[in-house]
């Protein structure tokens, strides 16, 4: 996904003079060639993430379309107030593109992990579009789409990926349809493949989206039965409020799966963390089976 981001952004900088890129040293070497062609629109501010977002805000105030990029924890967590004030409060947009989602940086430890990034965007109100692609081909499409608008958009890239791309899955896309009133399982971004594997043989409807904000509430109301399961690659429960609001007048139960809140203080690889958080296929199957079997079972 990172390669798809670098290739697509490079092409956008060559094609569209409105596009600008702001970096804080991360990925700077990969963008050096395009930076030599467009030195005024490829800006590396050094290890200064607050300034990176401030500069993005200033660029947008002059009518450019800035793309700002770093690890999620530096781009979002560290510069949260700049996102809130230098973009949101100014009424201007940018495309923020992160890498290192959740436990991608497992070996780096907590300093390089940001499972709470999407929840932070929820705290900013409903203006932000949050895209969580599950495949590099989705990244290409979503980035090109983002570059043509003026909206505030967060693109959350991961090293975890699904086998197949569904670039049109901004709305819930049904990949497996269960029987009448079958429970609905919603997988976001790279959680699709483990979710499909986990629900093999279960009578459930599996729907996929790479765009949790704005959440496809119309699709949710159309597809939801009594039981709804969220499988998200960031903090567990991040979209619970959306589901609860959408189904406020409908009797339902909700199981929200995702990354746990506790800093595990462990290294290992992303597969280890997926297992520890119960987000591998076996863990998901255990949680979903227990939830669905807990009524009258």
């Amino acid at each position, binding site marked *: 996904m990172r390669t798809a981001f670098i290739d697509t952004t490079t092409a956008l900088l060559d094609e569209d003079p409105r596009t600008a890129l702001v970096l804080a040293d991360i990925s700077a070497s990969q963008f050096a060639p395009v930076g030599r062609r467009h030195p*005024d629109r490829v800006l590396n501010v*050094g290890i*200064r993430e607050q*300034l990176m977002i401030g500069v*993005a*805000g*200033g660029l947008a105030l*002059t009518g450019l379309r800035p793309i700002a990029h770093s690890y999620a924890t530096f781009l979002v967590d560290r510069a949260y107030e*700049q996102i809130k004030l230098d973009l949101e409060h100014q009424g201007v947009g940018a495309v923020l593109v992160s890498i290192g989602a959740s436990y991608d940086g497992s070996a780096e430890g907590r300093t390089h992990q940001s499972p709470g990034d999407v929840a932070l965007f929820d705290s900013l109100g409903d203006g932000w579009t949050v895209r969580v692609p599950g495949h590099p081909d989705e990244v290409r499409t979503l980035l090109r789409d983002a570059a043509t608008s003026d909206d505030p958009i967060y693109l959350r890239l991961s090293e975890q990926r699904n086998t197949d791309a569904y670039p049109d899955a901004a709305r819930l896309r049904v990949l497996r349809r269960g029987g009448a009133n079958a429970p609905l399982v919603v997988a976001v971004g790279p959680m699709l493949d483990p979710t499909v594997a986990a629900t093999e043989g279960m009578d459930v409807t599996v729907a996929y989206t790479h765009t949790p904000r704005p959440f496809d509430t119309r699709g949710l109301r159309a597809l939801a039965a009594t039981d709804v399961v969220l499988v998200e690659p960031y903090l567990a429960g991040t979209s619970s409020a959306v589901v609860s609001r959408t189904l406020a007048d409908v009797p339902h139960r909700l199981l929200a799966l995702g990354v746990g809140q506790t800093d595990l203080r462990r290294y290992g690889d992303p597969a280890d963390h997926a297992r520890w958080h119960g987000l591998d296929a076996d863990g998901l199957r255990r949680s979903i089976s227990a939830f669905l079997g807990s009524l009258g079972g």
Partner: protein
Amino acid sequence: MTTTLTTDSSARLPGLIRRLTGDEKHAPSAHSTIDVLQVLYDRVLRVTPDSVDDPERDRFLLSKGHGPAAYYAVLAAHGFIPDAWLDDLAGPESRLGHHPDRRLVPGVEISSGSLGHGLGLAVGTALGLRAQGLHKPRVYVLLGDAELDEGSNHEAIAYAGATGLDSLTAVVVDNSSASYGWAGGIASRFTVNGWTADTVNGRDHDALYAALTGHRPRHPHLVVARTESKG
């Protein structure tokens, strides 16, 4: 380009400021900025109510959003906003709050209040203008000496100096309100990073004018406007 004296707002400002009430808390910071704002809008900035959307206009960013009474009065004196808006500061129907909002007030370039955001936005604005071949506009950003305590400013000071961002002028109104002061002087923090700097009496309009137009090629410029202590 020659800068011409466009307006002398001296006669109108005292009356306009008196119309603004309810902002006593931030009065010292409002009064410390009045002379800088007056010189900027009377004599320096190339922006009028008719050109607030013109890409070629100069930009003025009030980073130190506290105590904007003087700012609102100057905007009214120059016709950006109606005088009547001054009579209901921060009222339920007012467009003028204790911190300015660019979405509500014509001529206001940035929404500010929280310290430490204007200089980064100004750097981005200067870069964005340059990238679009707009080399005439200057970007002025006004900060307070205590606001410089915020670390975000130091990211911007270092970067603007290192890259020679010469369309940028920062104005620091120094009324000695920083908790620990600035040993060695405020200007030294900028010049060590490659800025040019002038430190002047913040009440002397001719000295302010010379400093505000005293930028040099290939360096961002700083004006330290010293006023009486906040006390």
